[in-house]
């Protein structure tokens, strides 16, 4: 467990980056700090491994004050992954991954074997082992960065916008990969991003920060989506607009789901008796994915976690490969919601849409 206890940070130039921040981050789960640029996310993250020293307050890791630990020893126990990989340009992929284990006097053969193992874990072809960072794509570099972060088998992994600089499709892959790795390894991960969708996708817990490291809201993605604490949060998560503001529209006897940008997100398939209707989401927005709405509570393969149902009488099957399909705000007849993407949005309508609150 990582505990921030009344942490403040004022930089020498007078900037108050973090103002009296307190929070407990549970072990073996992902906590995401999300906020716009300059809200103090990086500063908070870097105080955990003493890359930044707080002006006041304490940070405890498993009840031990990090200020009492040697910074180098502390950092070698904590994985760190940053946006532009920060790989050593003059070292090969394998050497980069094995850097810290070798510093820790792990025998060479062992360190190399472990580095190969880690390459597999993060989905890198072992043929890349002898390449230099400049010979890799941005996505591959980030995978090496993650492997390096895991090299000392740390309990804690700090990630500062690790997928911020890669293109959306690759980012998507890396996010899925991280979730898979986390299911296997169950690290305590602190993940920083300014992308709310990424926060909701990855976070078991999400902390929305405003300037000065003020906590605008902290909770599970569901809690935040279903109950934004303030205007600021509602605005930040885009609850009332864009992809998250779903409304229903009748058209030629069918009910269309329209998002806040006016794009048709899908068809509400209440009238089809033959099973779920799959509707491809319109447009280039890969986050929207495919929405299947249907009346049958048939068991679908790959049912992760059933959604939590608000007020409906019929239990729906909810199959989501990712969290937070959104909030469907209505009273009766639960549909099946199948979304390959997070946070499809909030369905704000009066008819036929039940409230579906999904967790991963």
């Amino acid at each position: 467990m990582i505990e921030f206890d009344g942490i403040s940070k004022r930089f020498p130039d007078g900037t108050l980056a973090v103002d009296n921040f307190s929070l407990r981050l549970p072990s073996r789960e992902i906590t995401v700090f999300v906020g716009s640029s300059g809200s103090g996310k990086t500063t908070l993250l870097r105080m955990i491994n003493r890359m930044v020293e707080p002006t006041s307050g304490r940070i405890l890791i498993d009840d031990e004050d990090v200020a009492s630990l040697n910074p180098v020893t502390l950092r070698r126990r904590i994985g760190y992954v940053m946006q532009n990989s920060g790989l050593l340009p003059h070292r090969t992929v394998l050497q980069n991954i094995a850097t810290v284990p070798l510093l820790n006097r792990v025998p060479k053969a062992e360190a190399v074997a472990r580095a190969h193992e880690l390459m597999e874990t993060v989905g890198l072809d072992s043929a890349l082992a002898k390449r230099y960072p400049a010979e890799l794509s941005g996505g591959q570099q980030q995978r090496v960065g993650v492997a390096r972060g895991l090299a000392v088998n740390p309990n804690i992994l700090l990630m500062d916008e690790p997928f911020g600089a890669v293109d959306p499709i690759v980012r998507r892959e890396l996010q899925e990969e991280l979730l898979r790795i986390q299911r296997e390894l169950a690290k305590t991960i602190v993940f920083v991003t300014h992308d709310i969708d990424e926060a909701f996708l990855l976070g078991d817990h999400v902390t929305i920060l405003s300037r000065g490291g003020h906590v605008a809201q902290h909770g599970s993605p569901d809690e935040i989506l279903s109950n934004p604490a303030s205007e600021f949060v509602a605005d930040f998560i885009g609850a009332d607009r864009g992809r998250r503001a779903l409304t229903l529209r009748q058209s030629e006897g069918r009910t269309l789901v329209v998002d806040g940008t006016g794009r048709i997100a899908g068809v509400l398939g209440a009238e089809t008796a033959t099973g779920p209707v799959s509707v491809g989401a319109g447009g280039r927005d890969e986050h929207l994915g495919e929405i299947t709405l249907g009346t049958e509570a048939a068991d679908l393969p790959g049912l992760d976690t059933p959604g939590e149902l608000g007020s409906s009488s019929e239990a729906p099957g909810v199959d989501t490969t990712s969290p937070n399909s959104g909030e469907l705000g209505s009273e009766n007849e639960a549909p099946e919601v199948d979304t390959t993407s997070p946070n499809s949005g909030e369905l704000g309508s009066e008819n036929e849409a039940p409230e579906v609150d999904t967790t991963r």
Partner: protein
Amino acid sequence: MLDGLNWLLDPAHWTGSRGIPTRLLEHLAITGMTLLIAGVIALAAGLAIGHTRRGRGLVVGLSGALRAMPTLGLLVFIAVQFGFGVRLAIIPTLIVLVVLAIPPILAGAYAGVESVDPATVDASRALGLTEWQILWRVEFPLALPLIVGGLRSAMLQVVATATVAAYISLGGLGRFLFDALPLRDYPQMLAGALLVAALALILDLLFLLVGKAVLPTGVRAARGNRRSKTPTERTAA
């Protein structure tokens, strides 16, 4: 010009304690000693300045002042001022040449370290490298091409200026110039100048090759790769 070449080709000038090989070796020895001493001092200071990002202003100012120093004047001053100066002519010579060689080596060292991507250094620190390890395993290897560049321009200056050592009766190629001056032996002066130029060129080429050799493979890859990478490689995750 032709006279100078003729002088050079005369076999009589290639033997004995006053011959070309001896003078060449003396010149090389003075140059080598100078670079060794200046290298130790300037590299230590330059790496420290580059790593800590402190004291740069002071050193830039000092280097400027050193560059403006009148070499011959200082040489004679030191030789005369100190008792050992005339008997042990090598000491004032080395002092003058080292002072001359320090600024370019210093500049190469701190510019080299400062040229390293701050994100690379930051990541290394966050990984748990000590400051010493960051300096020697990250900053130094990546700074090497610029460090060699600094040594190279110091070498050029020292080879040229080491001729003045002969002024206070030391050896080296300068002897051909200073011995010939009172005799108005222009062919010999010309030959001496040609020898200095040739030595400088050869050493320059040597340093150029060393500079290429110390360019880390991964950095070379970064430069070559921008052209050769195929689009599919670039988009693959």
